């Protein structure tokens, strides 16, 4: 199905209001879901809502690609932009919206069996799904809005919902409670830094609309309050994006929250924060300010490399599979930051491509773990012994996504690392390529340990024979796993999205 056919078949209301409806629908459905007495109905409605959002995201992408300027501007309440709130969608956000809704849809389909087995009180299911919809709505809002203060509001909506969902892992592991509290402190700090930064910018420019700020900033490059605002915003968003060394909240939050929450968060939350970071670095502040005046490459690149190397090392020494993958997530954020730090079109495209591919890999990996948690309990590497024999379908999908995480050719992970390598070579940063390769080599170790246990060790409990995850987990899991293979063989679609996104961030002339 091509994007043109989406446009011709879409109803008029979708064409006119898709950018705002895809945020508004989950937000408006959330209270309804919260008061539903029946958990199954709450699940079905959530799946439906996420599906509608996904469809609207596709329509939005088609609209953006067919629009002559490449920018969709939606005035909320018909208030014109500098004063009213504007939803501004270009190729960069359209890609993020597609990713968040797509993963959200798959994750919500898969959620039912794991949530029912992991949540203590089935009466809370409605509340849980309400929190999920709010979280998704908030993330989508962050990705769509063109208003800096509005972004803060959506950021808080998604964060508060996330804290709730993380804490709901307390039945399986009581450590979910301190993890959620820790996340709450760190997340609130991040959001506060962000809002303080916005305050400084507002003081200097007198506007909150991002495009408007961008127009007024070039005259204010020497302004102290703009510089301070820049620093506050970057630190605040960096915290949310788990930029090393502001990632301390992440491993615990991923390890102890309910499996479904881990799947959704790992594939979307840090990605959206990273998007906001890119948006501020390139669109609001412009590369000339961020990278030339503030020479920000020399802050971002070392942080990205440190994440890549140090967190990969930490991942090698973890015993819990979920923690291995959590540290690996921080390392992968490092790859994306490294690409973005180049501030060239191939670099930003490589970062965005890796952002897209990483969502596919980690989504699949954590889904497989969710299946394992359901059927076999434990999540340490020892518990994974022999799973290749007892749960072959789950573990094969896990292996495919794991190979993609390493960056084996013919998987999506290889394509993004290749693009990153290309961008680095083009800047003459061959030493960074060596570090990327070294970090991939560490990934061979930490993924290899898990695969070795699963496929080459006898099962711990030989009487537990064949025990596969339920179909509701397997189907979304395999969709993601096959996507990892498909986008490794025919990478045109994500590569095109990433290039368009980079052009949207850097300007049309960026790709020669």
């Amino acid at each position, binding site marked *: 199905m091509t994007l043109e056919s989406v446009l011709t078949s879409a109803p008029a209301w979708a064409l006119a209001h898709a950018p705002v409806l895809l945020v508004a629908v989950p937000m408006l459905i959330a209270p309804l879901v919260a008061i539903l007495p029946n958990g199954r109905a709450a699940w079905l409605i959530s799946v439906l809502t996420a599906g509608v959002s996904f469809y609207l995201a596709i329509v939005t992408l088609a609209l953006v690609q067919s629009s002559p300027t490449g920018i969709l501007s939606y005035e909320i309440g018909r208030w014109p932009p500098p004063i009213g709130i504007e939803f501004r969608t270009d190729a960069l956000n359209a890609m993020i919206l597609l990713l968040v809704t797509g993963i959200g849809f798959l994750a919500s389909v898969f959620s039912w069996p794991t949530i029912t087995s992991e949540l203590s009180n089935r009466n809370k299911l409605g509340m849980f799904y309400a929190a999920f919809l709010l979280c998704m709505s908030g993330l989508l809002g962050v990705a769509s809005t063109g208003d800096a203060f509005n972004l803060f509001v959506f950021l808080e909506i998604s964060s508060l919902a996330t804290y709730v969902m993380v804490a709901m892992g307390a039945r399986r592991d009581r450590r979910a409670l301190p993890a959620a509290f820790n996340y709450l402190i760190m997340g609130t700090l991040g959001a506060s830094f962000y809002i303080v930064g916005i305050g400084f910018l507002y003081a200097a420019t007198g506007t909150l609309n991002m495009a408007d700020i961008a127009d007024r900033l070039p005259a204010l490059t020497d302004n102290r309050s703009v510089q301070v605002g820049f620093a506050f915003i970057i630190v605040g968003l960096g915290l949310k994006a788990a930029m090393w060394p502001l990632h301390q909240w992440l491993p615990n939050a991923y390890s102890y929250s309910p499996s479904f929450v881990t799947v959704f968060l790992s594939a979307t939350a840090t990605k959206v924060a990273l998007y906001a970071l890119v948006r501020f670095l390139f669109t609001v502040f412009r590369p000339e300010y961020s990278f030339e005046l503030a020479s920000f490459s020399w802050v971002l690149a070392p942080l990205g490399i440190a994440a890549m190397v140090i967190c990969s090392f930490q991942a090698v020494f973890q015993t819990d599979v979920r923690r291995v993958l959590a540290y690996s997530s921080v390392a992968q954020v490092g790859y994306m930051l490294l690409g973005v730090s180049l501030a060239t079109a191939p670099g930003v495209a490589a970062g965005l491509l890796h952002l897209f591919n990483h969502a596919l890999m980690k989504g699949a990996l954590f889904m497989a773990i969710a299946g394992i948690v359901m059927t076999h309990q434990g999540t340490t590497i020892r518990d994974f012994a022999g799973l290749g024999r007892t749960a072959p379908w789950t573990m094969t999908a896990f292996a495919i996504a794991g190979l993609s995480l390493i960056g084996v050719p013919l998987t999506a992970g290889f394509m993004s690392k290749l693009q990153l390598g290309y961008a680095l070579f083009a800047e003459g940063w061959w030493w960074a*390529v060596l570090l990327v*390769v070294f970090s*991939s*080599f560490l990934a061979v170790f930490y993924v290899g340990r898990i695969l070795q246990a699963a496929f080459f060790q006898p099962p711990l409990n030989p009487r537990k024979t064949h025990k596969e995850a339920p179909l509701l987990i397997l189907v979304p899991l395999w969709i993601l796993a096959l996507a990892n293979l498909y986008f490794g063989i025919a990478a045109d679609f994500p*590569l095109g999205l990433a290039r368009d996104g980079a052009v949207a961030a850097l300007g049309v002339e960026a790709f020669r």
Partner: protein
Amino acid sequence: MNPETLIAAVLILPLLIAAGIAAMGKFPNIREGVTIVGSIALFAVVIQLAALVSSGARPELFVGQAAPGLAIAFKLEPLGALFAVVASGLWIVNSFYSIGYMRGNRERNQTRFYICFAIAICGAMGVASAGNLFTLFIFYEVLTLSTYPLVAHKGDAAAQRGARIYLLTLLGTSIGFFLTAIMWTWFVAGQRLDFVDGGLLANVQISPVVASALLLLFVFGIGKAALMPFHFWLPNAMVAPTPVSALLHAVAVVKAGVFTVLKVSMYIFGADLLNATPSREFLMDVACITIVVASLIALTKDNLKARLAYSTVAQLAYVTLGAMLADKAGFMGGSLQIAAHAAAKITLFMCAGAIYVATGLTNISDMRGLGRKMPLIFIAFFMASLSIIGVPPFAGDWPKYELMQGAVDRGADWVPFILIASSVLNIAYLLPIPILALMPPPPEAPVKEFKRPGGAPALTVAAPLFTAFLCLILFLLVDPMGDFLAPALDAATTTVQEAALP
């Protein structure tokens, strides 16, 4: 059949064979029948392709492209055809041998063994026929991954350890260096990775420093070529059952490595650029050091397979040396060595396996006088040893001759002395084995009875004898082989300007 179908058949046949083996796992006789019939069919297809290649055609197959320059594409040229013929032809012999060995030894998991073997052959065929570096890399890794279960076949602690070293070294070098080199080439050559006559990089502006770094990354990254210091996986892989050591670690896997080195030298760099690359001479030195040091280590090994493994390391360095000589005789010597060493080394390994099946002996010092009880095996061993040493009329003579000539042409006068020293060392570590075995045993330690009542199974004796005679035949076939390879060597040594003309 048209050339495209033939190439597709070469890649798909081994997988079909693997599937057939899996389906027939419960019926050992039919399962082995599938292997034998399949390997013969594969060889027939490869021969047809080789005939096409020798008539000047270059069979091609384009499957698809993942991104600009990253295509899955195949293109068979003489060197690849030679490697494919060697690997698929020896697979038939080795399959017969495997049946005798695996049954004689009562090994477990035989179905898995034959499946992995067939997939490994698919990997070797893919490496041989790859049309660009990306495709070659994929099949290179298929070969690595499919042979891991074969090395770990026994499943005990030693096998697991050996297999882990095997996998980590090969994956580590290939991802760490080889892949980096491929990415770098892709960037330098403007998003292209094809094998081009005269060298892909020859027409590109490239500084000597970058070319040096690339060459180092390539040659050390191709860990299967077992150049020191990345040779240690090969002795560790000897925990595998002997048919695996024979076909994979004397023919398919290691030859895929040196074949890749040759291919990169000829079709990515080209002789001219290689000559202008400073690190070439350093790599020549490394190859010479590998030849001498590995032979010296082989002298110290009492375990027969370990000695043969170090001998392989030394012999593989011949090919790297030939590639780094970067002239026609050097490339020719390297290519001939692929065929000649394959026939000789597979013989030696099959003999070692036959001895093990019959007696359970693995140490050379226990084999004194054994030749009286199994004369055919030790005669085959003797002939193959002579071929490795390079005595006429055995095939191993020609590569040494060509390499010496190439080295003298280049003014590297010391290389012939290295090769002569290597021959002397070969004599010292190989010949005592059959000679002592054929001598009467010392009175204080008479030869023990066979562990297996009937001695070595007939198949495990016939196979090495056949390949030993192959060493003789290959000696006579050097002219046709030279003619067959000539177009590829000419193309690689053509100067850049000519190649660049439209």
